[in-house]
């Protein structure tokens, strides 16, 4: 994890006012929606309270999604690193089959992470009401937050604050 903390400011496109701030050491939170855009700044900047609850919630959920997907992606990279694979006591006769299988699995997982992030992000950003955002958020949690790479709810709360 980098020591340099980046700050991402999210702006209401129509009002051109900041609505959300997210600080991160590692994860790239630069992303735009039809009704908001983000700017990366060097220093933390105070923001005025937003009046746009829908937009604020959309950005918060999209950030949650980026966070969990980044955590999962990192978990996959660590799990399939050369060092991790070498640590598994597979004998010489089976090693080529093992490496072929793990390479395929890693690629499949990475593709799935990108695909899911894109798919859920599109749905969140297109939502017209807070209820729609919450419904998508529920579906996301139901679909994504399972598996050995996914943090559980209580861990996620901390991760969400830290990144």
């Amino acid at each position, binding site marked *: 994890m980098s020591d340099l903390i980046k700050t991402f400011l999210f702006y209401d496109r129509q009002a051109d006012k900041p609505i959300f701030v997210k600080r991160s050491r590692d994860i790239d939170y630069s992303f735009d929606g039809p009704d908001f855009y983000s700017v990366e700044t060097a220093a933390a900047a105070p923001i005025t309270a937003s009046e746009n609850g829908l937009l604020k919630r959309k950005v918060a959920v999209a950030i949650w999604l980026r966070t969990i997907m980044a955590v999962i992606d990192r978990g996959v990279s660590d*799990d399939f690193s050369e060092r991790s694979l070498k640590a598994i006591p597979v004998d010489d006769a089976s090693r080529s089959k093992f490496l072929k*299988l*793990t390479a395929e699995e890693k690629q499949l*997982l990475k593709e799935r992470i990108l695909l899911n992030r894109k798919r859920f992000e599109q749905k969140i950003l297109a939502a017209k009401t807070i209820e729609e955002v919450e*419904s998508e958020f*529920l579906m996301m949690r139901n*679909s994504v937050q399972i598996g050995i790479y996914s943090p*559980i709810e209580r861990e996620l709360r901390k991760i969400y604050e830290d990144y």
Partner: protein
Amino acid sequence: MNDRPLLLNYTKKSNDDVGLDPAVMESRPVLSRTISRLKTKPDVFYFCKGAESIQELLEMPQQNLSWEECCFQRAEQLLRLKKDRYYISYSGGIDSTAVLVAMQEVWPKADLEKVVVLLSKTSIEENPTFFNRHVSKYPLETSLQNASRLLRKPNTLLVTGEMGDQLFGSVILMLPCQEEGDQILKADFREAVPGIFKGLQLHMGQLSESTNYERFYQIVEECPFPIQTTFDFFWWFNFTQKWQFVKYRFLQSSDWDLHLRYGEQILHFYDTIAFQQWSLKNHDLKIQDTWESYKFTNKEFIYKYTKDPEQLTLRKIQSLLKTFTLNEKRMAITSDYREVNSIEELRNYVRSH
């Protein structure tokens, strides 16, 4: 009553916004995915019958087979299906390892050439010696792919190690044993179970004053022998309340082809009458005094035919988790294998309590 729409399975992890009464809402998620095989029905939804009831199992002619005989009987049944290709879903855990052992013992060499093993890196990590000595001899494919695509080829069958947990006990007890020690297995269920349910809810991030215990307490009355310990209770809970959910949970991934049928293109190795009757009659063969001994009968079966002492120390871990990583889940499946797409539609199936 006959015209009421029915679900085959409910796979959503929580009940948010389903419109259930608050008492049920507070009891999620354990409660939401249970389908009772007893006369007592704590179910949240109206379900069709997708598995044998406990009464039917008790009234059928008793096969009285040993664990080994059950395994070999199932391996023979699978062989008699004369499929062109058998995909074996192998997690590296105790149950799926025993599936391969049974098949290797019963099937002629020529038939074993029809076997393809579906597995992941975790499967190999869980049981590396079995991988080196046995699994790596078969053609291998990743279990993270959409297996239903493989099954579109004619005369192909997927065999899983599902239902083993329901026969032997419940993985719910793994965490309490780690946190509080193995003595909880033999504790009086009336004292320990409410706290375990509550701990489970907290673990899932759910804060609630009520527990599932009140809702499920009455299931103990239908057990053919007295439920006394925590282990007894959770085995009975898993065997009677979770069987159908586990049997059909392969349908939950949104990319699974709903035209494929259980019994035609997919079968669970441990889903036989003989295995279920074994579970009802051999309660002393499921666990000894420690969590490490969980499924010791199946471990001894594996050891007998592999002569590998490491197979006796295999620990139960939740090896299925990865299979479901990052797959969009269906909310529920109807009795005619249709997907329920909306909360509004799901409300049609809610039972009133």
